[in-house]
C-alpha cells in the first residue's frame, strides 16, 4: 500500500472539478502529483498504467480506478473513483435543472466557445507530457508517430491501433 485512502481522496477530489473537456485534461496534473510531488510511481510506471487503462473498455479516466487500486488496494480504488467522479457528477445533477430552463440562452454557446481552446490546450499538454514520458527509445517514438498518423487519417479504430502498438513494441523491442 503506497498511498493512504485519504491522500488519494484529496488528490482526485481536487482534480474532479478541473477535468474540463472530457477528463484527459487532468492527466498531466495527475502525473505531476503522483510522480513528482508524492513519488508514488515513476513517470514510466505512470505511462504503463495509462496505457493499460486506455486498452480497457469503458469511459475515459479508467486510469483513476487503476491508480487507486495500484496505490491503495480495493479501498483505494473505491475512494479514488468516488473522489474523481463524485464532485463533477454532483455538479452535473445540480446544473441539469438550470440547463433545461435556460439552454437556449446565447451565453451558453459563448461559454462553450470560450472553454474549447482551454480544453484543446490542456489536451495538447496531456499528449506532450504522456508522449515525452513514453518516448524511451527510437522505436517507441516511431510507434507514437505511426499511431498518430493512422488515427489522424482515420484509417483504423483506436483499439486496433493500441493492439498494433503492443505488437510492434514486442517485435521491435521498443
Amino acid at each position, binding site marked *: 500500500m503506497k498511498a493512504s485512502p485519504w491522500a488519494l481522496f484529496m488528490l482526485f477530489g481536487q482534480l474532479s472539478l478541473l477535468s474540463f473537456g472530457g477528463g484527459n485534461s487532468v492527466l498531466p496534473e495527475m502525473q505531476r502529483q503522483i510522480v513528482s510531488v508524492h513519488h508514488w510511481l515513476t513517470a514510466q510506471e505512470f505511462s504503463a498504467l495509462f496505457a493499460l487503462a486506455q*486498452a480497457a473498455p*469503458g469511459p475515459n479516466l479508467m486510469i483513476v480506478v487503476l491508480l487507486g*487500486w495500484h496505490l491503495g488496494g480495493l479501498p483505494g480504488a473505491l475512494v479514488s473513483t468516488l473522489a474523481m467522479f463524485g464532485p463533477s457528477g454532483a455538479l452535473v445533477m445540480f*446544473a441539469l435543472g438550470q440547463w433545461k430552463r435556460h439552454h437556449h440562452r446565447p451565453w451558453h454557446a459563448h461559454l462553450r466557445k470560450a472553454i474549447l481552446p482551454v480544453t484543446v490546450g490542456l489536451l495538447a499538454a496531456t499528449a*506532450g507530457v504522456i508522449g515525452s514520458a513514453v518516448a524511451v527509445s527510437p522505436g517507441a517514438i516511431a510507434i507514437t508517430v505511426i499511431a498518430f498518423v493512422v488515427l489522424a487519417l482515420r484509417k483504423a479504430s483506436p483499439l486496433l491501433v493500441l493492439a498494433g*502498438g503492443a505488437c510492434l513494441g514486442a517485435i521491435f*523491442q521498443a
Partner: protein
Amino acid sequence: MVTVAVTPDVREEDGEGGRLLPPTVKELFVGFFVLGVTGFGGVLPLAREALVVRRRWMSDSEFLDLLGLCQLLPGGNIINLAFAIGMHFRGVGGAIAAFAGLLAVPSGIVILLGAAYAQVRHDPLVQHMMAGLAAAAAGLLFAMTLQLGAQLMRDVRALMVVVAAFVAIALVRFPLLPTVVILLGLSILITARRRA
C-alpha cells in the same frame, strides 16, 4: 452536430413508434451497464445508438442537449451523461444507478488487467509490449488533440489560449487550478469582446 440533420426526430410527430415509458432505476443501471461492457474504444457513438435508437429513452435533440451540458461541465463526457440521464428520469437514485452501472464492468476489467500486469511486468517481452502500447496510446492523444483543435485553426486568439495552456502545463508544469482559472477567464473575455 450532423446527427440532428441525418436522423430527424420523427417519433414526436407519429405516436406509433413513440417514446417508451421513462426507464426505472433498475433499467438505468442495466442500460449503462451494457454500455460499459460494449464500449470498447469510445462509448459516445454507442451511447446515442443505444439510448436514442434502441431503447428510445429520449429524442435525438434531447440527447444532444444533455450531451452539450455534459461537455461543458468538468468530468468525463460519458460519465457526466450517466449522471445527467439518471437524474433526468429518476433523480439522484437514478443518477447513482446509471453511474454505478456504467463503471461496474470497466472497473473490474481494468483492475484485472492491472493485476495481470503486476504479475508479469518484469518479463522483457511484456515490457516491450507495454512500451509499444503506451507509445500508441500517446499517439491517440495527439490525434484527439488534432481532431478537437481542427475547428480552431483559423482563430488566432483561440490558438494563443491553446499555446498558453500547453506551455503552462506541459513545459512549465504549472499547477492545473490557477492555469485553468486564468486561461478560462482570459478565454471568456476574448469571446465576449469579439461579440461586442
